[in-house]
């Protein structure tokens, strides 16, 4: 299973593509792409890249744990939550930072 993630252009905030085609801050709202949905995933990547408002796009592998999305890589878990030390809240989108594909 995979999710799409990137950073929003103006704030640099970590964002995830959700089921409605919006880029959102919450990992748990991310659309999980199954293996057979690779076409949809590639299409979303292409449209997003063209739009230019979400950068540093990456496909991340995840598993579901008790129904919650759990990224395989430590890096992604830290990206989702913000730095562990010193502990800071993650970066948030500006008011005009919300993006749809």
């Amino acid at each position, binding site marked *: 299973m995979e999710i799409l993630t990137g950073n929003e252009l*103006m704030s640099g905030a970590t964002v995830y593509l959700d089921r409605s085609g919006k880029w959102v801050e919450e990992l748990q709202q991310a659309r999980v792409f199954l293996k057979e949905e690779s076409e949809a995933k590639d299409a979303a990547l292409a449209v997003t890249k063209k739009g230019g408002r979400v950068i*540093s796009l990456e496909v991340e592998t995840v598993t579901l744990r008790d129904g919650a999305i759990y990224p395989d*890589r430590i890096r992604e878990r830290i*990206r989702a939550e913000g730095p562990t030390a010193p502990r800071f809240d*993650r970066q948030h989108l500006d008011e005009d930072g919300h993006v749809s594909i």
Partner: protein
Amino acid sequence: MYRYDEFDAAFVKERTAQFSDQVARRLSGELNEDQFRPLRLMNGLYLQLHAYMLRIAVPYGTMNSRQMRTLAHIARTYDRGYGHFTTRQNIQFNWPKLRDIPKILEDLAAVEMHAIQTSGNCIRNITTDQFAGAAADEIIDPRPVAEILRQWSSLHPEFSYLPRKFKIAMSGSTADRAAIRFHDIGLQATTNGLGEIGWQVWVGGGLGRTPMIAKMISGFVPHEHLLAYLESILRVYNRYGRRDNKYKARIKILVHETGIETIREQVEEEFAHVKGGVLTLPQEELDRITRYFAEPDYELVNQTSVDVAREKILNPPYGRWLERNLNAHRQAGYVSITISLKPVGGAPGDATDKQMDVIADLAERYSHDELRVSHEQNIVLPYVKITDLPSVYATLVEHGLAEGNAGQITDIICCPGLDFCALANARSIPLAQELTRKFAAPERQAEIGDLKIKISGCINACGHHHVGHIGILGVEKKGTELYQITVGGDATENAAIGDILGHGFVAEDVPNAIERLVDAYIARRESPSEPFIAAFRRLGKQPFKEALYGDA
């Protein structure tokens, strides 16, 4: 301190306006990310894990109070109230927004600062000894030459697209406090047979995935020919350095694969063409730049020493601070002070906006308006009267800056690691915090003595782990952070790369592993005055390997 001339001011102003326009065009969609990325990197703006990161140059680590206050203002206004001082004597802000960058650059330009050439395959910030111009053991103040190199390397058209980034460090004394043997070029002040001062030139040092100790390419280059000689090295590198593989593109690989003798011949051949031409540095220009770094108007101070032993009895924390955080000065009655940015449990190198303001105030009031960033991620007040020490210390205590641990086990160099950095594989800051907590007791630190721990969160080695007396490298293995421990590294004139002694440890086990190394050292040292690194050299790695892994 050096002050911008009209050319400097004009080019920084021009670049600021240029980048402001580029940001506006990016936000409007006129530029796409592929077009914008190299432009933002040329201006020190990276995209990290959580946000943009802006790296600001502090030329040869020297600032005045106005500049430090501007950094505090940036931290407060555009970031999250703190900044991170780096091993390149620069500062990084971890949370700026793209639309604020033009304003930040304007604020910086107003105090003669910028972020140009803090990224990219160009000549980066020239670094030097944090005690330059003040140290008792100095042959020459390296800052005038560092400033000339800054001017030469800034926007140098021939060296803007080198095979890879290029770092130059210099030391004006025989004691190397700038890790010059681990830079692409290292310059060490020296004298020739006639007693003239010039530069020993080292080339091909570096850390990262292929650590190398630099090799001496010339034993003596006089000031007047230094630019020509460095230009010759850069030309050889630009011509022959590999561009097909970024992991083999640094000059250390070229020197290693080609051999220093061949590189020296190529450089000498180029030097023969360039020497005596436009790059010859006129003495009057060197004198002009040197005047910017003239010694401050020292006062005659009656008190020329401080009774540390007495202070340790009367006020132990103050006594410890005096013992560890002062550096001998060339001027009687003065010292240089290291302000530790390594509090127990803190993130190494971080300072809050309030602390930056306080340090600026101290520099203005007590240190002839000057301060330094050290490559060991501390701040230095270079010119402080001994009689002012109690006042300076009291202010530092009030603001959480009075840790008396310079050069001790808790004075850890540490990269941002996986908590911030897009390249990292493992976290480094939490480990540094844990180690400082474990060894927090001042008595324990005093018992251990001089010991440098350096931590990197990936093989790129921004935390200089290869040259830590004890080095720690974070890696990721099967979804777990593991830490390799090296022993015996040394960044000084006795340059050495640490040895890996065995398998890695999970984070929870690292503090106890380090303690076993420390205990092995204490048990085997000849006397308390034999430092860890000297004991390691005498004993070899076996006892330390046994301490880590048992004698199986």
